């Protein structure tokens, strides 16, 4: 029972901070809301009793990604300099319309679909051993591709962002 109440509190909070990300007036507020939202989703993984993925979420998202974003915000001096320019475009009302349509569709799908499996049961705890085993037994190829992908992203970030003599 308490789990459920707790879940609902978290869910509402996540929706609120996620809305904060896209509605906040200054960029830096958005960034802070994003950190909260990511952390909240991490908490959701804990509700699902899959600690491993929650850990990944906190480490990579909460750590690396947000730091990157904050760094970029500083480098582009947005929000901090507090330039009084609107951060929301003229297209916003139409965007809201489309997003609302999408939201209605996705919620409708989630609710109306007869998902396979016994829905009465709780989420099953997945052990970290199982995940590791599956990942390296069945998904070795994507793992290797990820290595190449990260290398590419790394090279790309360097190529595009590095200062050169001519700069």
């Amino acid at each position, binding site marked *: 029972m308490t789990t459920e109440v707790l879940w609902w509190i978290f869910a509402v909070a996540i929706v609120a901070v996620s809305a904060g990300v896209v509605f906040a007036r200054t960029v830096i507020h958005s960034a802070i809301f994003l950190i909260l939202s990511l952390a909240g989703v991490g908490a959701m993984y804990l509700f699902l*009793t899959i600690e491993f993925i929650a850990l990944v979420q906190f480490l*990579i998202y909460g750590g690396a990604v947000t730091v990157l974003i904050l760094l*970029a915000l500083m480098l582009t001096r947005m929000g901090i300099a507090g330039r009084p320019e609107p951060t929301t475009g003229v297209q916003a009302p139409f965007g809201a319309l489309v997003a609302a349509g999408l939201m209605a569709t*996705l919620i409708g799908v989630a609710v109306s679909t007869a998902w396979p499996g016994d829905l009465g049961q709780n*989420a099953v705890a997945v052990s970290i051993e199982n995940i590791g085993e599956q990942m390296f037994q069945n998904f070795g190829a994507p793992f290797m591709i990820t290595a190449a992908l990260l290398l590419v992203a790394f090279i790309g*970030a360097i190529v595009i962002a590095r200062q050169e003599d001519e700069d």
Partner: protein
Amino acid sequence: MVPMENYLVLSGIIFSLGVYGVLARRNAVLVLMSVELMLNAVSLNFVAFSAYLDPDKATGIIFAVFVIAVAAAEVGLALAIVIRLFRNRSTANVDEAATMRW
């Protein structure tokens, strides 16, 4: 007990908020943050499905790990491009980077 649909609805809401962010916000970094929201919703979906329907193979969880990795790499690369945009044009607003049109 929390049924699976709850997670899916939550994920749908986050995803749509992210879509709204991409459509409405002008700052490139904000657009990226909105994309992160969307990817986050996707991960949540995967993990929820995996936990409820497919706990043995845990494919969804593995998928989520990869999505997070790709998201991180994407942010790194995109931010480099945004910083370069800022150096070239002194703006990080996507709607001002519109030299090419029609």
